[in-house]
């Protein structure tokens, strides 16, 4: 009896491996250079998901390959073409916005379906039916933040400090400014900084303080935000602080006094301290392998692979199909399916490729993120 069981298991295993050739999943990311921190995180996240899926041994397995694009559009297209020669069937686009604009045009021309983990500019998906995003498009974060502040009645007089040479910061700020007045919020101060003058914020903070802002909105990454928090405390200004997903990571920043971030609110799709079992497992595995807490890029990469798995399963796609055969199947799935991942529950995509998921309101209490709702 035992022998028969072993034999059946072997046959099944063989059949499984013969049947389940992997789907070739490729993406480009800055793995070297200044933006490498984002590229590495997204790749690591995706790799964990691929290993988990392959270890579970279902019908859908993946072979993942990331190529370096050094955050440059020309190199990204070269990397994309190298992946195409390798036989990429489904694409993870590019990690950063500008390179992804260039590769998305190639994806569209070649009919290879793409789901980018983190390229958030609107031009990435615009006019392309087979390019989708896992992260919020920048403008959506601005309007979601305005809505959240108004609905929760956090403040009526708001100041904005933003970085005017950064696509991400500008995208969020523009829609925030546009949306805020319609919701009864008053923008009393709107101040900028740029690369090179991002260490002294006293002018911006004084302006916000004298104009009586109750809440300061910070659409930026966490490095300048940490300086703003420290300098505001130095001048005795204590408004409510509100950030977006770029603020995620401030607590793990080296040399940052966590007490400064006490009471900071942020809207982010991913929270590494969540008690949700999926997130706990992902964070534990990431810490084990890479010795650091995963950021939002890693979580987006992880979710992309699982979203692909779900869509390919539902569409009953098989790995022998060419990229242009898989593409229409995936477009149909992504515009209809609902996905639950570590960056959000009830994630849906619209036909233009933008994602809708509920941003989670978080507040920092005692040095940890706590849900606001």
């Amino acid at each position, binding site marked *: 009896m035992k022998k028969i069981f072993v034999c059946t298991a072997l046959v099944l295993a063989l059949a499984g491996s013969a049947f389940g050739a992997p789907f070739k999943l490729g993406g480009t990311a800055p793995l070297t250079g200044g933006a490498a921190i984002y590229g590495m995180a997204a790749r690591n996240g995706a790799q964990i998901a691929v290993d988990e899926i392959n270890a579970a041994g279902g019908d859908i397995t993946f072979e993942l390959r990331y190529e370096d694009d050094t955050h440059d*559009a020309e190199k990204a297209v070269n990397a994309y*073409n190298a992946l195409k020669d390798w036989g990429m069937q489904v694409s993870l686009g590019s990690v950063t916005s500008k390179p992804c604009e*260039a590769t998305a*045009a190639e994806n569209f021309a070649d009919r290879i379906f793409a789901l980018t983990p983190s390229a958030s500019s609107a031009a990435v998906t615009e006019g392309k039916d087979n390019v989708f995003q896992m992260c919020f498009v920048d403008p959506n974060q601005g309007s979601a933040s305005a809505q959240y502040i108004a609905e929760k009645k956090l403040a009526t007089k708001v100041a904005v400090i933003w970085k005017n040479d950064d696509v991400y910061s500008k995208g969020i700020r523009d829609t925030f400014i546009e949306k805020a007045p319609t919701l009864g919020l008053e923008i009393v101060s709107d101040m900028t900084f740029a690369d090179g003058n991002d260490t002294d914020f006293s002018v911006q903070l004084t302006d916000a303080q004298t104009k009586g802002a109750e809440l300061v909105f910070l659409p930026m990454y966490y490095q300048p935000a940490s300086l703003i928090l420290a300098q505001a405390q130095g001048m005795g200004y204590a408004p409510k602080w509100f950030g977006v997903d770029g603020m995620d990571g401030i607590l793990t920043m080296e040399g940052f006094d966590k007490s400064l971030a006490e009471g900071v609110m942020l809207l982010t799709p991913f929270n590494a301290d969540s008690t949700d079992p999926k997130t706990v497992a992902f964070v534990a595995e990431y810490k084990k392998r890479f010795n650091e807490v995963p950021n939002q890029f890693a979580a987006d990469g992880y979710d992309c692979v699982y979203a692909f798995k779900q869509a390919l399963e539902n569409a009953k796609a098989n790995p022998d199909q060419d990229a242009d055969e898989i593409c229409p199947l995936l477009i149909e799935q992504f515009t209809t399916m609902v996905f639950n991942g570590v960056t959000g529950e009830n994630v849906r995509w619209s036909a233009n490729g933008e994602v809708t998921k509920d941003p989670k309101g978080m507040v920092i209490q005692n040095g940890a993120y706590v849900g606001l709702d």
Partner: protein
Amino acid sequence: MRRLINLKRVEARRIYLTYFVVIAAYVICQTMSSTKMMSSSMRGMLVPICAYMVMAVSLNLVVGISGELSLGHAGFMSVGAFSGVATAILLQNLLPFAPVRLAIAMISGAVFAALAGFLIGIPVLRLKGDYLAIVTLAFGEIIKSILNNFYLGVDSAGLHFSMLSDTTRLLPGGQLIIRGPMGISRIMKIATFPAGFILVMIALAIVFNLVNSRFGRGFMAIRDDRIAAESIGLDVTKFKLTAFVMSAALAGAAGCLFSLNYSTIVANKFDFNTSILILVFVVLGGQGNMLGSIIAAAALTILPEKLREFSDYRMLLYAVILIMTMLITNNDNIKAFFQNILPGSKAKFQKEESDA
């Protein structure tokens, strides 16, 4: 044509060989590409390689022929790229036929880059040697930061410019073409390999004709001995400026071709590193040697892509290969070795030496 006949035999042979190699390479690549024998990776690099070849040839005119070290060549490439792409976008509805639009865009890129070259050349070319190198480097950075803060929009009332922040206030239906640090998006890809080939041929024709004219002899006379050249009445600034402006114009056309091959372009792409990359093409190919520049541009563009299988060590290997090439091609023992196994070349080498 008469000018070519009057040339020294060796020189004429070198020019015809260059044209021949470029045409042969084009025919081979075009056949391989249309019969699908070429990988997508190679096919994707054809247009950028053409653009880099033109960049290398044009910089060689300044560095090799007129002997001025310029470290800001990518600046002219970016002026050409931004003005050319903006022209292409403005003409999108007026001129549906893409090749004509591409040609006009490249001409516009060349004109704007030549203008930039002229304005920069007036103060810069009074300097020489290291000073000139440093000032051209600074101008390259200035061009980059101007374009990083430049906004250009179009609406029914016409063109609108603004600096630092977007204050163009476009009417409804208007389109913001250049968006400061975000560069240009939604570019229609109209650059083609045949167009790139034609541009390379035009660049070669211009440079060879210029070099073998009265101007070319003037460039070289100034390069070899500035004081002697001045003493026989050559207007040094005029000669230098001609070479500089011509080189800037070709770089502008190349920049336009390059950026019309991608759907997005940002000013930061054309930074100091790009200038140095082009200088490497020139130095590796040999100063004053156009064929060498062309081959070096193609080889150094393809090389990092062919090294992708070494993943993390890719750029390290690239650097090692570059250093090795420089050392080996300048090693007398190795040169002698090749001359021994190729007896014909020894005689030719010596003949060329005595010619020179």
